[in-house]
């Protein structure tokens, strides 16, 4: 697959904005969030600068979703602060976050498959013509913009009246990202955008993420797939059991380290040992099987590299 070299070449381009000398676009400091007795997040910090991809890695249940929902205004943090451009902010609703330029694209909750491309693109932001009771959705204008934007992201649609359900999974994610960017997002929060996608489709989305970064957006890329994070991340933040498990810069870390930091490393080692023991046992016919995992068919780990 030629996905990775293409992404690498894009990563070598300098982003449109020099990142380090300005305040971070979005910074979360010491965020804690509790649901009754459950500690979902405890003292988590994360920042994203313009022209950077911040990867947020964590196993299932690490608190990724809670953190995203806190950043995007769905939840209010119980402790800690959020800052946009260095200024402290409080989000009362997702709309507040959107108005501050923070757009979240959820894995499977971003587009309506039964609605047309144009209608999806402008849902909630429909351009209108006319006045008073005759104010109506300016569909020709919307269709024109949607067609232009789809062309810009490399999806050629003859008819933006076509239902989004006819697009591939990667194209749908890309559409959602392009839409957020078109409506003024400066920070894109992408929730597992590649987790339900095959290799080719993931490559489409990853390439688009890097392109957005190179246009100067800050991207928070949430994933549990280390092999998707490593090629495109500028910084990596690991979330483990609701706490920050480590923060790294590009080049400082490899996939083995990331895996072990995510808390999946030990389990993967354990699984490897068990499977090896099982394989040895099966090569020696008379010995009775004793591995506890024998009743389950061995499955690959959740973080199996997919695009190398």
């Amino acid at each position, binding site marked *: 697959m030629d996905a990775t070299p293409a992404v690498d070449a894009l990563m070598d381009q300098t982003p449109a904005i020099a990142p380090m000398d300005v305040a971070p676009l979005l910074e979360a400091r010491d965020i804690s969030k509790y649901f009754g007795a459950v500690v979902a997040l405890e003292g988590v910090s994360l920042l994203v600068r313009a022209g950077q991809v911040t990867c947020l890695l964590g196993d299932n249940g690490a608190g990724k979703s809670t953190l995203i929902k806190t950043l995007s205004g769905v939840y209010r943090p119980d402790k800690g602060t959020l800052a946009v451009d260095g200024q402290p902010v409080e989000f009362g609703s997702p709309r507040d976050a959107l108005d501050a330029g923070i757009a979240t694209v*959820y894995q499977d909750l971003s587009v309506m498959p039964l*609605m047309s491309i144009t209608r999806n693109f402008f849902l909630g932001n429909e351009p209108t013509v006319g006045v008073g009771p005759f104010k109506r959705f300016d569909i020709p204008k919307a269709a024109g913009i949607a067609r232009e934007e789809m062309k810009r992201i490399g999806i050629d649609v003859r008819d933006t009246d076509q239902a989004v359900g006819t697009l591939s999974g990667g194209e749908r994610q890309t559409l959602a990202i392009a839409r957020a960017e078109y409506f003024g997002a400066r920070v894109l929060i992408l929730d597992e955008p590649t987790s339900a996608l095959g290799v080719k489709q993931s490559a489409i989305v990853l390439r688009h993420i890097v392109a957005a970064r190179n246009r100067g957006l800050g991207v928070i890329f949430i994933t549990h797939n280390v092999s998707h994070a490593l090629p495109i991340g500028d910084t990596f933040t690991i979330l483990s059991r609701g706490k920050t498990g480590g923060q790294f810069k590009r080049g400082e870390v490899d996939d083995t380290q990331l895996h072990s930091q995510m808390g999946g490393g030990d389990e993967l080692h354990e699984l490897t040992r068990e499977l090896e023991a099982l394989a040895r046992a099966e090569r020696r016919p008379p010995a009775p099987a004793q591995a506890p995992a024998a009743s389950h068919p061995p499955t690959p780990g959740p973080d199996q590299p997919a695009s190398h």
Partner: protein
Amino acid sequence: MTSTTTAAPRAPGSDRLRDVSLAQRFLGRPAAGALIIVVFVWLIFFSISVTQRGLDAPFLSLAGTLNYLDVAAQVGIIATAVALLMIAGEFDLSIGSMVGFAGIIMGIGITIWNLPVWLSIVMAMALATFLGAVNGFIVVRTGLPSFIVTLATLFIIRGASSVLTSTVSPITYIPVDPTKIASDPLGSLFAWNLPIQLGGGATTSIQVSIFFWVLIAVIGVYILGRTRFGNWIAGVGGSGAAARNLGVPVARVKIALFALTGFSAAVLAAIQTTRFTSADILRGTGYELDAITTAVIGGSLLTGGYGSVAGTALGALALGMARQGIVFADINADWYKIAIGTLLLVAVVLNSWIRRKFAGLT
């Protein structure tokens, strides 16, 4: 590498898209199935009529056509609102009981309280709209399925009609004085019809219900297809969570549509109360299922996010034709339910086949 991932200029026509003919584009519309159903139903009753009585058959006459249009209109008035609500992903099973209730309120206002007819109608409309909004409010606030919530309010509203009526009348209906209706501006509007002279001194008339139906359907088509609110309706039904993330006021959209459904029930109640010069607690029984059937024949999905107001109007037309066609053909009226059930099944299968085949959707 698929063509969709390359940024290079492309030869005319992506390899992922086919040229589609006009016929295919038509079949890609949600109302296409309903149009086929209407033609199909008409052809069936046309054949039956012609075999029975030749071209003079009542089904083919102007009077007969206006007759089934009136039946279609009565279903169509409430089905338009129900379809919009279904596209937003919700049901209203209480709409039939709301028709009865709104009528009873009009009857009590006019006959018992001696209020002007117009005031009674306005009062009933306001109350039905409010109760519709209450349905919506309960659904939105509790997050319960609207199927259950409105099933509960179906019983409550039907029961309230009986209780109210029994406190003012020993019988289960409230008569309304026709002269009051005729002398009232709103009353005479809802009771109005346009007389038409047929050859040989015979007359027929276009019932006002048909005008209301066409007006409401046209407004519905406009709202769904050409306004921001219409885009929100489909978005809310497609995925409430996603629509909310995009800034769509999901709760307001749903409550507004439930209120609209209540209002449409009151419009139908006003037509029936003034035409029959009475309000009956049982009026509207079963209408909720007629309305849902109509919306589904019209191409709306039970799961929301997809549907058509124009298709719903065609669905109402198919229902009206089938109901009166059976009467005109002197077939035992019990066959109507069998016909509607069959029609519903055929329409659902046809619609889902069309959706897969021509709109590229599953």
